[in-house]
């Protein structure tokens, strides 16, 4: 570490101020941030959504989102001030000297071109390499990133590889010109835990092998602990604390940092009290489902008791969401029996009575797509009130406000459009819409995975409180083991459309595990420095 302080930094951000225009007003999103990154160093940028993490990451590339402007400060990349030179002179830097790895590789790759063509493009056009040299280097990178069949991997199209592989392909694209700095913008957030480990290991390996400096943006502290040398904690566009990783993990100083750390333990108190109250509310036996010839669910046996929370765990593609859709009647089962409240449950929405529809509600992962962007909160929550309960006018309005308060919003939110709400608020509106029906069973499909940790804990606490007062049952679909630990009564583990293991939470989380459950549990990053090192060491052994 000692030699580094004397070498010139790769990036030096001094007192950077950036404003963005929203609703015709300029608001500060980065407010006097100074950061220095030395060669070979990885800086973790941590904070809630909206803290300005991505804006700073992009500013290090000399890039501003449309509608944003710099009002002060400098960004020096390898001694060159990026903010004062014209865009034409900035562009040659990108891809060659600095590179960017985005959150969603699916969205970042062009689906109609082969991976290799996209990966070598910058190297050939700006990096001064010939096509053959660039391809050779790409294959080396594929190998270093542990991609399967590195020689022919580049011939595939983006949709022919998995999400984790695509994310690694994007790391290869970023590394192709051997840049001095890479900005990783939440590269593993969209991946499930088992894939995340693979990508993290690959990223760690290339960073170390090639000695590149990096900014690693994330809201997951456990992840940053594995990758970064130093961490800067951001809040409202300001750095509240910056320290080497070991110190900030052990002895956070700023109160905000401490609160972030505390949230990670998910301080949700949940009294496990699920003495089977009579017959189960919902029970599935031998249920299967298929998309054309592909069987997505096989022989599912599952019960949800009254007032109980059942967590459905598994990686993406394991059929969890299909099972949720099947229960609310959006997907027809190919076989098996669904029994709700002692009576057979018709397979399609159309055949179900209004009373049944009312009692089983679903909440989606992404409130962005689950709320109609052109309806006000009042209309979104009010609709089930008039549909199921026939409420009109003042009584509907009163009930709607009651629901808003129930989900910890207030009547000032009623007139807003979803676009004017934060991610957490949107999810609360979606929850209020489900509650408006006065359901007895709510299928929660990954409802907290798009939220950051602080908001996530709030929403989970609220759900448990509602359960205690209203007595609803939850079928909680998730891939986040921490969430399961916090709220579940019983756990169902799914893989490839089958149930691998199910039982009470304590039993599932206590050894011995099924092999798949074991892997799932082992993949959840610990909040401790060196967790990834141990995994890598364990694999090497």
């Amino acid at each position, binding site marked *: 570490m000692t030699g580094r302080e004397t070498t010139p930094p790769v990036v030096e951000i001094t007192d950077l101020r950036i404003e963005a225009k929203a609703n015709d007003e300029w608001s500060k999103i980065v407010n006097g941030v100074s950061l220095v990154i030395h060669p070979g160093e990885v800086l973790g940028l941590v904070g809630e959504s909206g803290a300005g993490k991505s804006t700073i990451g992009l500013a290090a590339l000399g890039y501003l989102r*449309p*509608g944003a402007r710099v009002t002060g400060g400098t960004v020096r990349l390898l001694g060159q001030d990026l903010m004062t030179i014209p865009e034409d002179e900035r562009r040659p830097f990108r891809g060659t000297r600095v590179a960017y790895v985005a959150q969603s590789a699916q969205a970042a790759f062009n689906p109609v071109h082969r991976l290799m063509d996209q990966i070598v493009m910058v190297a050939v056009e700006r990096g001064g390499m010939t096509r053959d040299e660039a391809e050779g280097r790409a294959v080396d990178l594929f190998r270093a990133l542990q991609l399967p069949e590195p020689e022919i991997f580049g011939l595939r199209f983006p949709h022919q590889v998995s999400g984790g592989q695509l994310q690694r392909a994007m790391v290869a694209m970023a590394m192709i010109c051997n840049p001095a700095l890479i900005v990783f913008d939440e590269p593993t957030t969209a991946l499930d835990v088992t894939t995340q480990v693979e990508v993290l290991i690959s990223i760690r390996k290339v960073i170390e092998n090639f000695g590149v400096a990096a900014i690693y943006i994330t809201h997951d502290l456990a992840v940053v602990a594995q990758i970064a040398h130093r961490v800067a904690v951001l809040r409202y566009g300001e750095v509240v604390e910056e320290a080497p990783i070991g110190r900030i993990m052990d002895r956070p100083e700023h109160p905000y940092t401490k609160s972030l750390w505390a949230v990670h333990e998910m301080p949700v108190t949940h009294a496990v009290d699920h003495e089977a109250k009579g017959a189960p509310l919902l029970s599935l036996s031998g249920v299967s489902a298929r998309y054309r010839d592909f069987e997505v669910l096989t022989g599912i046996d599952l019960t949800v008791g009254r007032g109980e929370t059942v967590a459905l765990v598994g990686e993406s593609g394991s059929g969890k969401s299909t099972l949720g859709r099947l229960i*609310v*009647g*959006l997907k027809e089962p190919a076989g098996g029996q669904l029994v709700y409240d002692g009576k057979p449950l018709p397979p399609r*929405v159309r055949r*179900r009575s*209004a009373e049944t*529809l009312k009692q089983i*509600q*679903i909440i*989606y992962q*992404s409130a962005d*797509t*689950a*709320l*109609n*962007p*052109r*309806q006000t909160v009042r209309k979104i929550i009010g*609709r*089930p009130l008039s*549909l199921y309960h026939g409420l009109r006018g003042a009584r509907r309005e009163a009930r709607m406000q009651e629901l808003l308060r129930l989900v910890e919003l207030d009547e*000032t939110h009623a*007139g807003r459009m979803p676009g004017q709400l934060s991610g957490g608020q949107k999810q609360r509106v979606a929850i209020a*819409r489900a509650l408006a*029906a006065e359901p007895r069973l709510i299928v929660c499909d990954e409802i907290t995975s798009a939220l950051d940790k602080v908001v996530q804990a709030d929403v989970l606490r609220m759900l448990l409180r509602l359960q205690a007062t209203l007595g609803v049952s939850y079928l909680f679909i998730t891939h986040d083991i921490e969430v399961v630990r916090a709220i579940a009564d019983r756990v169902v583990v799914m893989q490839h459309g089958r149930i691998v293991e199910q039982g009470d939470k304590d039993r599932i989380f206590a050894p011995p595990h099924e092999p798949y459950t074991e892997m799932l549990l082992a993949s959840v990053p610990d909040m401790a420095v060196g967790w990834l090192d141990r995994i890598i060491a364990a694999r090497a052994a």
Partner: protein
Amino acid sequence: MDQSLHSRPAAGPGRMTRALRLIRSAPLTAKIGMVVIAIYAFVALFAPLLAPYGEYEVVSRVPFEAWGPEHLLGTDQLGRDFLSRLIYGARNSISIALVTTVISFTIGCLLGVFAALVGGVVDQVISRLVDALMSVPDLIFTLMILSIFGSSVVNLILIIAVLTSTRFFRISRAAALNVASLDFVEAAKARGEGLLWIAVNEVFPNILPLILSELGMRFCFIFLNIAALSFLGVGLQPPTAEWGSMVRDNAALINMGDITPLIPAAAIAFLAIAVNFVVDWLLNRASGLSDEG
């Protein structure tokens, strides 16, 4: 910033204020377009007050009279006042085009959203029917139908409306397909909502900007279509004043170096350009191509 904006309750500025602010933020071309459209609308609405003579009134014994103080734009082939007919023509041409546009818009969009939501065989049947309709050249099809059923205003409106609705169908179906796959539509289905409710409340507001732009453009085409048909003699029948037929009836004047018959043509062109200015702006806003607003 307007003072009244701040004194309003938390519900946000009212519709009128927002609309005014929106118009103020429009680019110059869109503003010009809006002013021109407003003038046309004014002329069409108050035609009887503005026109110096009646629509069919023969005011001069001299056909093709030159411009003069009595008849500002001269007279036509039967000695009727050209300016008056131009003013009444605005009323006839625009109102017929408007009615036709509204009918075709309603048919096309409802069917399009319906097809997108239902999918499967229903979608296939409707879409192939529309394809079949679109495969026949519009003008030939219109001429054929009009010669079979006779060229009345109602026939004219219906046939053009049906043909144009195929365009609305295609664009609204494509746009609705994107929206129909979103979670909020699925949530509405799971809630037990009817198809019509989903189409009108969930899907329609989300595709509105796109089809509004299409609406403006189609209005121009319908307008031109009617003018063209009138020019060919199968559109609006005399003595009704209509810009397209006015061009034809007075076309002989062009040979004598008189530009009068070109005035109705220019009137059509101006309106088409004005509508397109506004439409371009709406389209930019809807697709997010422009940074404004």
